[in-house]
């Protein structure tokens, strides 16, 4: 490759692991990936619940019993957050793709907004659906 021959500028290194931390947009980004992976892994469980809920009045009752279990509720609460975070962060990434809000400050603010909105919606919807 031709670019390999281009002389590289010496860049400053700062790798003090006690000092460096992931900036807010980075946190939103990695949570986007983690929430996406979690949703993928538990997709069969969600499809199973959906199947039960719409198949017959009897299976609907089974579905009700399963989602009534506190542990299942906790998992669904986590999945609700995962969906909402993936949703909000996804919209942010779509806007960034359209070159909206790509400067440092707006990008940081929208990252903060994504975290706040998805958490707030999770609590509101979670409490309502509980």
């Amino acid at each position: 490759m031709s670019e390999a021959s281009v002389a590289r500028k010496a860049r400053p290194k700062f790798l003090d692991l006690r000092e460096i931390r992931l900036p807010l947009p980075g946190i939103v980004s990695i949570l986007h990936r983690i929430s996406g992976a979690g949703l993928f892994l538990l997709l069969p469980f969600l499809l199973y619940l959906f199947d039960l809920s719409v198949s017959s009045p009897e299976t609907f009752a089974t579905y009700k019993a399963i989602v009534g279990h506190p542990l299942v509720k906790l998992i669904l609460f986590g999945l609700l957050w995962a969906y909402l975070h993936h949703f909000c962060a996804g919209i942010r990434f779509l806007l960034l793709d359209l070159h909206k809000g790509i400067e440092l400050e707006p990008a940081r603010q929208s990252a903060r907004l994504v975290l706040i909105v998805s958490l707030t919606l999770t609590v509101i919807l979670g409490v309502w659906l509980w």
Partner: protein
Amino acid sequence: MVKRLVVGAHYGLRDWLAQRATATYMVLYTIVFAFAALTLPKMDYEHWSALFSGGLMRFLTFLFFMSLAYHAWVGVRDIWMDYVKPLGLRLALHLITLFLLVGYAGWAAKILWRL
């Protein structure tokens, strides 16, 4: 400015675009679904299942699951490509992901058309 040598059949661009197109559709569907579900007069079997048995909503929901499968394929594949370097293992994970997602899409279609 880095001079890049562009090669290949642009599969990357196609998947990148598809991931965003499916994302946009799922955002719209989510809003429609959330509104329809949260305004149900009563959360029982009759009302809940009737929500998906109408022709339009069934079609939109089917399209949602199709979008989800394609979207998840691109996303999960990106995760494997980032973290799994041995080629054989990566290929195996790609295939498992693909089979699972095709299976899930079929399952979703079966659920919707049985209604």
